[in-house]
């Protein structure tokens, strides 16, 4: 027989969970093999910079939440993978500057059974600019010299969201995906301050099923409250 205080605690516990509409009933942890992905992208940075980049995506952790629909009782799997991504790329801003950048980020990928997926990523990296046109320096005596390949180093950090379509989960599975990535990032120190950027990428992502790494996968079973 359940003692009254325990009953009250259990009741409060259920009340707290009620707004979520689900009860986490069962968790399990195991190791699975997940593929590495490489990607290439064309890049646009507001207002007139165009470029390209290439990178790699490592799966780091995986979580599958199996939820049961309250009315129909149908089960649905929701994948939430933590991913680590890194890329190198360049842009050219005519009559201003060109940039070479390297960044790495961590984020989360959300997907279900259908081919669409969504990600967000937080990135940090380094940017090297090269000015368009010749860069001159004039010393105190009026002597002029040309600075070859002159530019500046900046740190960069930003946030990207990814909306994609994974053909691997399509009707005829293919090992690639297409995605669109709007992002916002800043370079600093830019004139003792920051320079904001608004960019987007059109990504072609290829999964190497032959190159897999083991990641911990957590399975969570959610059942609706009665």
């Amino acid at each position, binding site marked *: 027989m359940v003692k009254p205080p325990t009953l009250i605690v259990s009741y409060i516990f259920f009340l707290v969970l009620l707004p979520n509409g689900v009860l986490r009933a069962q968790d399990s942890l195991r190791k699975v093999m997940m593929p590495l992905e490489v990607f290439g992208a064309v890049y646009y940075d507001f*207002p007139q910079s165009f470029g390209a980049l290439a990178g790699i995506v490592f799966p780091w952790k995986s979580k599958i939440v199996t939820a049961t629909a309250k009315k129909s009782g149908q089960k649905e799997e929701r994948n939430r993978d933590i991913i680590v991504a890194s890329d190198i790329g360049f842009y050219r801003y005519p009559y201003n500057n060109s940039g070479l950048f390297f960044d790495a980020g961590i984020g989360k990928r959300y997907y279900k059974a259908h081919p669409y997926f969504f990600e967000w990523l937080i990135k940090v990296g380094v940017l090297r600019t090269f000015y368009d046109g010749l*860069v001159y*320096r*004039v010393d105190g005596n009026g002597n002029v010299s*040309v600075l070859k390949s002159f530019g500046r180093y900046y740190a960069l950090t930003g946030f990207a969201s990814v909306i994609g379509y994974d053909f691997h989960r399509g009707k005829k599975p293919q090992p690639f995906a297409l995605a669109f990535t709007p992002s916002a990032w800043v370079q600093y120190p830019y004139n003792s301050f920051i320079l904001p950027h608004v960019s987007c990428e059109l990504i072609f992502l290829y999964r190497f099923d032959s190159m897999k790494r083991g990641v911990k996968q957590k399975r969570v079973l959610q059942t609706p409250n009665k």
Partner: protein
Amino acid sequence: MKRKICILLLSLLAASCKKEAVRLSTSANDLFWLSNAGADMPVWVRGNTASKVMILFLHGGPGDGSLVYAGFQTDQLWNQYAVAYWDQRDAGAAAGNNNYSNLSLDQMIQDLEKLVTLIKYRYGSDMEIFLMGHSFGGLLGSGYLVKGTNQNNIRGWIEVDGAHDYPESNTLERQMLIDTGSSEIAKGHNVSQWTTIVNYCSAHPANVSLDVDLTTDDYASQAENYVNINHTTTAVNYFSPSSPLSFGANLYFLNYTVRGRAFLASLETLSFTDQLYKITIPSLLIWGQYDFTVPSTSGYHALNNLGSSYKHLVLMPESGHVPMDGNTGLFAQTVLQFVTAVK
């Protein structure tokens, strides 16, 4: 095949070692940079460099950037002469890392000295340079010209609604707003707007604080609308070599950070009126008749104080603080006549 590759590589090596030859053109569209004291400043050159005459535009603000004026406002000059649009440090598309400690008028004057040297190096020592300073550029240009022998490198001085005397400009601005406002209120024109302006200016003397002076500047800009000054409405060209994001970041830094405002505050006491007699090169003063920000009285004072024997002041009858906008054609014609006369 190996031989061809070797020849190609040697050619590339030879080309990279060769001194840059700048081609003069009747329709130049050049970009180069001056890197000085932590700032990398772009200079866009448009127009007729083959004329051997270049108008070096000193933008206002500070912080405005020069490309804002590189469209319809000044493109009528390009056929006959070249115009160099220079973004001053921490303005427009100028870049750099931690360079704030170098942001001062003295440093900007040094930047300008080096830029003049560079233009003559790049385009030939026979290139005749005319300085055109608008608003804050009037302070910068005056500061440059009264220093040492700088004016020996300049063929002519064109000051456009120039703030060569900040305290005087602030005082005249406030007085013009009160006088014009009172008159307009009496006529029943834009009564509520003018009442706000007149009340503010009456309650806040000039040259007391940066905040008051900046707010008065805002009212001066608004006031142009209440006397029907034409501001050309064009689609904002976000897609230009000067990114609106760098422009905005630089302006934000100047106006909304402690360090940027310290620089702006340092300008509020600067005046070159008592040194204008040192300027003896031909000078043209262009002023918008309805400029509340730097009223035309300041232009007349400059005309009286300049040491030049060849000097004119031309009022633009339908203009406020930006006559190249209010009277675009007349502005271009006035500049061209002056340059042609004294080159």
